[in-house]
């Protein structure tokens, strides 16, 4: 099981799911209508490292975070 967290304004409770790569997570999240407006704008981190490839492998216990558009300062 991996844990998916939704940061900042997404305002959604974390989800647990089976996934062997980020591609599995993407497919699963695309089924969720409440995330439709967010997926195209979010960066993704695996265990707090920003990643750039859907082929990023996942193992049980990994944390996937979705980071919506930012504005610090």
């Amino acid at each position, binding site marked *: 099981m991996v844990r998916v967290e939704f940061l900042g304004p997404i305002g959604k409770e974390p989800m647990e799911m089976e996934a062997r790569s980020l591609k599995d997570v993407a497919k699963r999240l695309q089924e969720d209508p409440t995330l439709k407006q967010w997926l195209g704008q*979010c960066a993704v981190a695996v265990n707090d490292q920003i990643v750039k490839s859907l082929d990023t492998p996942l193992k049980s216990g990994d944390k996937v975070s979705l*980071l919506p558009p930012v504005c610090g300062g």
Partner: protein
Amino acid sequence: MLELYPGELNVDKIFSRWRKWGEDKNFGAFITFVGTVREEDGIEALSFDVYEPILRRWFEQWQQRAKSRGAVLRMAHSKGNVPIHTSSYMAAVFSPKRRVALDLIEEFVEDFKANAPIWKYDIKNGERIYAKDRSHPIEGSGLLDSI
């Protein structure tokens, strides 16, 4: 070197502490940037969410970059509500000479705005509204929508 505070920053106190830290280290240049909440569009305050683990990694990468140029960075940011005319963000560069400090403060502040995992909300009539129009997708966004 990265400090997070609930609510507004005590700017004078942080400035003074940072300056004293650098005092005996033979830095010739010390630049600080202070970001203050502007009164506009009838807001009472801004409010911030910070995701600390990624912010710390992002900051440490910048600290290494600064170190390779002989400089040191410091930063302070607020979490939660920050009233108008008070400050939510401070950044500083210490370096032996001015050129590196002038370059770094600009590069660091701009990258902070583009990539630091911090989310901003307007507080209006007590409501917390995501500042969507002023926010920027982090580099590499859209990955989960790309199949």
